[in-house]
């Protein structure tokens, strides 16, 4: 054990209460995800489209720091406040949005026993915190006082009620099988990955995850071909960076939850790795979540956008019954297997 002031600082930083929200899986890792994921998205899309994608900004690494350049540009760009906007809401909603995507990291366990705030109800807590973002999007759309943002806000309101219900039910279908609402306990109890036990819930959760983060084919809220950038039309500079980042962060949070619910969480694919060093468990969670993210953004190069009414129909007529079915499936499994 290290001693002295430095030792205490290191211990303090490495303690889960600080390390989890600030470094991993929290802010620092999330920023890394943000910076690399958008680049990876652009590169993947470019690959499908027979192009190079970002390149010359750092040629040896295939333009890997493109997002850093974009971020710095946004930082030094003039932030425009529209004259008719509600100034406080307009400026603070993106900040709050970012905050609500970061807070869940305190409750998401990153390794066995390694969690910022260990609560029994971490699953509903994380989901509810991410459910706070749509109202903030509504707030931005209202504050910007623009016709396109208003339409985007209405779309978000419609979409929210369509996906949020199915998202929660699918998550609780899994929780009811394991008999706990704590993410860490769910992971501990998972001897077989949840995606095999309850594929319906996994499917519903994944699709609603795409809807939540408004990724293709459900990027209806930001439907640029109809309503420019939806609720974010008026944002510029650093505020736009925040709102754009928030949707990716939300996707990251939900993909962490997805991995913990359905892909065995931090348990490495090769179980022997875990015994080498406990850090491998955290890395394993990260890699799994990153692969889920990559798959989610890869859909961009395959699908077009659904129409609003079609997406609502999918939400209510397909996903909602499927989510209910997944609950029944879980209960049936409980009956057959006699509990996990």
């Amino acid at each position, binding site marked *: 054990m290290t001693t002295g002031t430095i030792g205490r600082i290191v211990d303090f930083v490495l303690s889960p209460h600080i390390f989890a929200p600030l470094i991993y899986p929290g802010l620092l890792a999330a920023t890394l995800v943000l910076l690399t994921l958008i680049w990876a998205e*652009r590169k993947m899309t*470019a690959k499908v*489209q*027979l*192009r*190079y*994608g*970002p*390149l*010359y*900004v750092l040629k040896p690494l295939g*333009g890997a720091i*493109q997002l*850093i*350049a*974009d*971020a*710095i*540009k946004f930082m*030094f*760009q*003039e*932030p*425009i406040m529209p004259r008719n906007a509600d100034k406080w809401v307009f400026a603070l909603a993106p900040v709050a949005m970012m905050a609500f995507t970061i807070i869940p990291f305190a409750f998401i366990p990153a390794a066995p026993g390694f969690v910022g705030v260990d609560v029994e109800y971490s699953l509903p807590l994380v989901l509810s915190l991410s459910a706070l973002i749509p109202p903030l999007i509504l707030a931005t759309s209202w504050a910007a006082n623009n016709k396109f943002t208003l339409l985007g806000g209405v779309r978000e309101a419609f979409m929210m009620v369509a996906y949020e219900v199915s998202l929660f039910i699918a998550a609780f279908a899994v929780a009811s099988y394991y008999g706990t609402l704590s993410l860490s306990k769910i992971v501990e109890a998972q001897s077989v990955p949840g995606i095999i036990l309850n594929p319906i819930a996994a499917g519903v959760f994944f699709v609603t995850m795409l809807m939540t983060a408004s990724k293709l084919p459900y990027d209806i809220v930001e439907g*640029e071909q109809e309503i*420019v*950038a939806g609720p974010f*039309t*008026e*944002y*510029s*500079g650093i505020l*736009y960076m925040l709102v754009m980042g928030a949707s990716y962060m939300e996707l990251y949070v939900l993909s962490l939850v997805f991995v913990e619910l359905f892909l065995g969480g931090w348990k490495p694919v090769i179980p022997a790795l875990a015994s080498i060093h406990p850090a491998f468990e955290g890395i394993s969670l990260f890699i799994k979540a990153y692969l889920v993210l990559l798959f989610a953004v890869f859909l961009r190069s395959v699908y077009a956008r659904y129409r609003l009414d079609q997406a609502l129909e999918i939400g209510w007529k397909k996903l909602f019954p499927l989510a209910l079915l997944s609950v029944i499936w879980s209960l049936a499994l409980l009956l057959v297997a006699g509990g996990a």
Partner: protein
Amino acid sequence: MFCPLSGLMMVGNLEEVARKATRWLVEKTPVRSLKDWAIAFSLWPVHLTTSCCGAEFAAASNPRFDAERFGFLPFISPRQTNLLLIEGTLTKKMARAAEIVYQQMPSPRYVVAMGACAIDGGIFYNSYNIVRVHELFPVEEFIPGCPPRPEAVARAIIMLQKRIREGRTAFKV
């Protein structure tokens, strides 16, 4: 800028000092060159197709020419972009739109005029409905040609990047 301490402390105009300090910091070499580097590799043009050179502009981002290599990403709303590409003839009706779009863009913003028509009217030089681009905007680069090939667009991007990094742009804050 709002400064909570200006009433309390006897240091003169704190707001002014803060602004000066910020400006001094931003203008200094490391920050400034970082900023210029970032802007140069993140030129996002706005979706304003003014005329038929738009066909070649679209071709500039297709797989054969792929302008995204330069970090050049056509983006959706003028609020998030920093480059206005005038693609060919600017008619009077369109000039008004271009003017509004330019004013909606956040600073720093650059204008590149594409095609002979944007330079001096080109084949339509004596039409009653066209506008010279340089009378409206501070143009950084003119791309000659009717229409310019996509390679010429790529060259203009590289030249503009160079100008930004050398601090020789026509746009002044």
